[in-house]
């Protein structure tokens, strides 16, 4: 797979309005010079800032109690400890720094759950760049703390009211802004999606996850893992975690998508009650690249669904789609109920409240322990503080095996 052509098998490419093409070519050039060839020491500065500002390296933790439960060795890569609370900063910091090297003087970004938006706002504050974040009106209402964090970091947050008002509309809107202000503005896309060079570039900024994890596994376990698991929305933490293991043929790679409430798709209504693009999607063109997408028979993009806002996207990174087609990565999925169970399990057994996204991957082990071998590497892509409200609402009224009794979280009495 050569990222230079912008194609991953059948996937990838640059399906964008002409107005953006020159900027994309400029970005391609900058990506090659600064990221791939480390011109002007770009990558050194990036690595240094990731360490000092971001808190890298993040630890690899042996999970005592999970290992005991599954009678296997479970190692957790702790991206939840990165500044901002998720792996998103790796990419945001890389792109904002790159924009600076390119002489751009304004940053725009889209955000769904708000994690990418907050990471971008943080990176912009850190590097002194003005920042505007597009966010669906509905997501704004669901994710107020993240909206507030972006505002605190000095970013503007612009509501997108078209359509359902979620991530897919926000991406479209950001592309429109970019088309208008392309000469001095850089668009920091939030995952390994979009037109080339984004999928390759975002992967390369996230690659640090597997560079560290592979080394840490060797140091700590003395071997490579039998299987490597993580969640996949757009797939940036996924590609970041897989990148350095791809050539280790003996290591099984699992991309865990959101099974939502059901894998069935209502093409009539244009609604997929899941975000399991790799399992249930078909080839299409979305947001600038050819990839797997959730679409109806005509090619209209469907509304996806997941209890976890960060996985709730109708597309997926083209490289990941190709790796699945080629059989190198196994695409699996975990539904909302099981994700919530995974969330509560990690919180109680290990004292780590994971992002709902990450909880999907964790939960996959619970029901598929046997196929995963003796040494498992699991990425905790983010922390769950952003999800407290959602978990409270979604746990209530479901029969989640190991949830604490949160009905007593009401206005009176104790919380026994």
């Amino acid at each position, binding site marked *: 797979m050569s990222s230079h052509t912008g194609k991953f098998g059948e996937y990838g*490419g*640059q*399906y*964008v*309005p*002409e*107005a953006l*093409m*020159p*900027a994309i*070519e400029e970005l391609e050039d900058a990506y090659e010079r600064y990221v791939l060839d480390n011109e002007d020491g770009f990558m050194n500065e990036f690595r240094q800032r990731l360490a000092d500002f971001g808190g890298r390296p993040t630890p690899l933790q042996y999970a005592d109690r999970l290992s005991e439960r599954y009678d296997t060795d479970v190692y957790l890569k702790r991206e939840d400890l990165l500044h901002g609370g998720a792996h998103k900063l790796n990419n945001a910091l890389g792109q904002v720094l790159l924009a600076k090297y390119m002489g751009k003087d304004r940053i725009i970004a889209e955000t769904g759950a708000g994690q990418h938006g907050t990471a971008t706002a943080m990176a912009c504050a850190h590097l002194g760049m003005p920042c505007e974040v597009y966010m669906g009106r509905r997501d704004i209402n669901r994710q107020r703390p993240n909206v507030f964090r972006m505002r605190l970091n000095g970013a503007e947050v612009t509501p997108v009211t*078209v*359509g359902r008002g979620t991530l*897919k509309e926000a991406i*479209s809107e950001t*592309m*429109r802004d970019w*088309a*208008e*202000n*392309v*000469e001095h503005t850089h668009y920091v896309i939030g995952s390994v999606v979009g037109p080339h060079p984004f999928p390759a570039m975002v992967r390369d900024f996230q690659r640090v996850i597997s560079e560290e994890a592979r080394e840490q596994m060797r140091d700590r376990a003395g071997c490579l893992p039998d299987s490597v698991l993580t969640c996949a929305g757009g797939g940036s933490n996924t590609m970041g975690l897989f990148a350095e293991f791809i050539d280790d043929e003996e290591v099984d790679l699992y991309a865990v998508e959101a099974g939502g409430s059901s894998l069935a798709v209502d093409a009539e209504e*244009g609604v997929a009650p899941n975000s399991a693009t790799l399992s249930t999607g078909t*080839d*299409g*063109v*979305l*947001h*600038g690249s*050819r990839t797997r*997408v959730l*679409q109806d*028979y*005509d*090619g*209209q*993009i469907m509304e996806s669904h997941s209890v976890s806002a960060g996985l709730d996207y109708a597309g997926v990174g083209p490289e990941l789609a190709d790796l699945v087609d080629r059989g190198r990565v196994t695409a699996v999925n975990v539904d909302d109920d099981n994700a919530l169970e995974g969330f509560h399990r990690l919180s109680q057994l290990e004292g780590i409240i994971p992002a709902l996204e990450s909880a999907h991957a964790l939960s996959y082990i619970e029901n598929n322990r046997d196929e995963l071998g003796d040494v498992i590497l699991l990425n905790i892509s983010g922390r769950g503080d952003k999800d407290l409200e959602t978990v409270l609402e979604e746990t209530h009224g479901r029969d989640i095996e190991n949830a604490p009794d949160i009905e007593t979280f009401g206005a009176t009495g104790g919380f026994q």
Partner: protein
Amino acid sequence: MSSIAEAFADGPAFVPYLAAGDPDYESSLTYVEALERGGADVIELGLPFSEPIAEGPTIQSAIVRALEAGMTPTRYFEFVADLDVDVPLVCMTYYNLIAQFGDDGERGPEAFVRRAAETGIDGFVVPDLPAEEAGPLREACDEYGCELVFIIAPTTRGERLERIMSQVSGYVYVQARLGTTGARTALSDRTAESLERITDWDVPKAVGFGISTGDHAQRVIEAGADGVIVGSALVDIVAQGVERGDPAVTVADRLEGKARELTEGALRGMPAADGGPHPERT
């Protein structure tokens, strides 16, 4: 000479846009027909896609209305067949609808273009399809005798210009300013500059993005364009009708009036026979 080439042959062309099926199938038919009465030389007829990344808020909303009223690619072709207009039609849509289109067990550009050509479409504009990725669609167009219009932006230069020039047919859509579609009160002064870069192209140059008055149209033609493309200013009239609950005939009349204003503006901009801004075309 293709029908589109003919449309540009004598005098400046007026190329209006509407989204098919906005706000409903029946009204939309009458609206498109009104454009012809108003002087349209070519009509760009939008096939609505759920993620119209090149459109501003006006056309986005039109697309949402059309989709909600049940527009699909299949209905679109029925719509084209039902239309009673004589001017050439250009289908404006996004690539995923073309790539997914299924007909007779086949899928993709060829199936799409075949059906479109059969139905009476003369050309295509696909804003998210750059020249680099246009191979399959270009081939299908050649096979079925359709034109493939490309957009050039104010930022398009050098190699990219040449790549587009080698692929474009019918006319070149000159984007008057950066950004997405949408009516403006002031006209971009980048138009003349953009046109200069392509004076030697052998396709007609139609300028769009932000043109909303006869006066704009006149100035665009004076700047050297062979045609004016107008979308949002017309869609605004449709939107206004929906908002106020006006009967379709009233809206159609307004569209016809606006079209006439634009046609006439364009004509005013035409160079005198003794030469002028378009010396190469006397």
